[in-house]
């Protein structure tokens, strides 16, 4: 008798699990039909890095070619060569190349960037026929606005120098006045 009960219990459990799959037969598919629809992506999503616009340098990035990110990158995938436009205190990058095939998306370069001008692209579904696709040149999108920004920075430097002059002159006069009152 025990065997009959056991077989009955087994059969009931099989029908139970069949019930579960039947229940799901009626569900709405959860598929995101990728090429047509795209699932919403998280704002912090990590992909290849790019230079983002900063307000101090309107229309361009504010990278000062300090090579911090190149030094911290665990897989050595960033390579930068900087140049110093004449009349400017800070340097600007001449080339900023990223070999995205080596990148492990760890985010250390973003943390270590002093001017926080590194960010992530929104392109998460990159694929290519050749390996050359993954040598990104990060300066490409800012090529044409480079001149105006250098001009803007030069202008900002001049203004800052002028303010410094004015402030120093003001202090000198104030000191001179005090010296005058003290006698």
């Amino acid at each position, binding site marked *: 008798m025990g065997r009959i009960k056991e077989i009955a219990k087994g059969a009931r459990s*099989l029908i139970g*699990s069949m019930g579960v799959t039947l229940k799901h037969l009626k569900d709405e598919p959860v598929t995101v039909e990728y090429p047509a629809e795209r699932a919403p992506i998280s704002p912090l999503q990590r992909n290849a890095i790019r230079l983002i616009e900063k307000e101090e340098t309107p229309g361009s990035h504010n990278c000062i070619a300090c090579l911090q990110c190149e030094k911290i990158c665990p897989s050595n995938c960033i390579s930068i060569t900087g140049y110093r436009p004449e009349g400017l205190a800070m340097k600007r990058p001449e080339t900023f190349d990223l070999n995205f095939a080596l990148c492990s998306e760890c985010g250390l370069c973003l943390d270590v960037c002093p001017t926080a001008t590194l960010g992530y692209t929104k392109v998460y579904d990159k694929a290519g026929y050749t390996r050359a696709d993954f040598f990104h040149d990060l300066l490409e999108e800012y090529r044409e606005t480079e001149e105006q920004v250098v001009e803007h920075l030069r202008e900002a430097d001049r203004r800052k120098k002028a303010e410094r002059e004015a402030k120093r002159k003001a202090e000198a006069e104030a000191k001179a006045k005090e010296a005058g009152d003290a006698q």
Partner: protein
Amino acid sequence: MTPRTFNDIFGNPYLAVLAATTVIMGYLTVNALMIIWMERKVAARMQRRLGPTERGKFGLLQSIYDMGKLIGKELITPTHVNKGLYLAAPVLVFAPVLALCSLIPVSQSWVFHDYDIALVLLLAFSGLAVIGIFSAGWGSNNKYSLMGAVRSVSQTIAYEIPLILSALAVVMMAKELNLYQIVAKQEGLWNIVLQPVAAVIFLISATAETNRAPFDIPEAESELIGGFHTEYSGMRFGLFFFAEYSNMIIACSLATVLFLGGWHGPLLPGILWFFIKVYALIFVMMWFRWTFPRIRFDQLLSFSWLVLTPIAIANLFVTAVVSKLV
């Protein structure tokens, strides 16, 4: 009530055989491709995903592309293979399918052949497929295929007995071996009502006969990589794929004929009822596949010998007693 066989329709027998073959092959090809698509869609819907959609309207052309690709693949014949068996296997597996199909009484008015011992012939031919599977496994000289072949032989032997016993229960009730008459006798009352136990046993052992989950241990994907068809590529593997689905159609249509009263049904024409029932059973078989894990090899055999066969014999005994009294 005797049906008009193809001989009567076409006059000379050669024309009849030719017509029957084209009808069956046409039906099987279209049907196998359709069932492959249906299986992927049913599986997808049960798993809350979409299944093939990008190829044709609802992914309908997907199976055709699959077949086209399989035809275009290179047929690798590995050197370490026993060439005779290896090449014969796909043909051997597919051969009985034609014979099986011609015996099934599809509609009220006509039938391919009207033999008085159609059921015996059908069960005999269904035993042939395992020879093809065994020669595939043995011929490929691959350890995984060898194990797949050994498993398929013992599984087929184990599940042939309950299959025949449950069919016997129906025969004992209908006192008839001619499938057309068996269906004709189920006029008002389908056999499943009188023989529920035999119907369940028949369905379970038919699933095992066609090597479909949860009894798919001959080509257990996660243990034996590809089972008996590990070494087959291109259209040879396509033939195995094709034969498996054709066997599935035959098993379901045999179950419909024996238990669900072939073409009997209100309103709709007979042949349509037959196909509705066949596809309902095919859906149930697919439902099994996408719900259950795989049975282990030794449990599979003990399930057949220690559970199915005794119940089938007991059922046979009860049917004998009841049919004597009534």
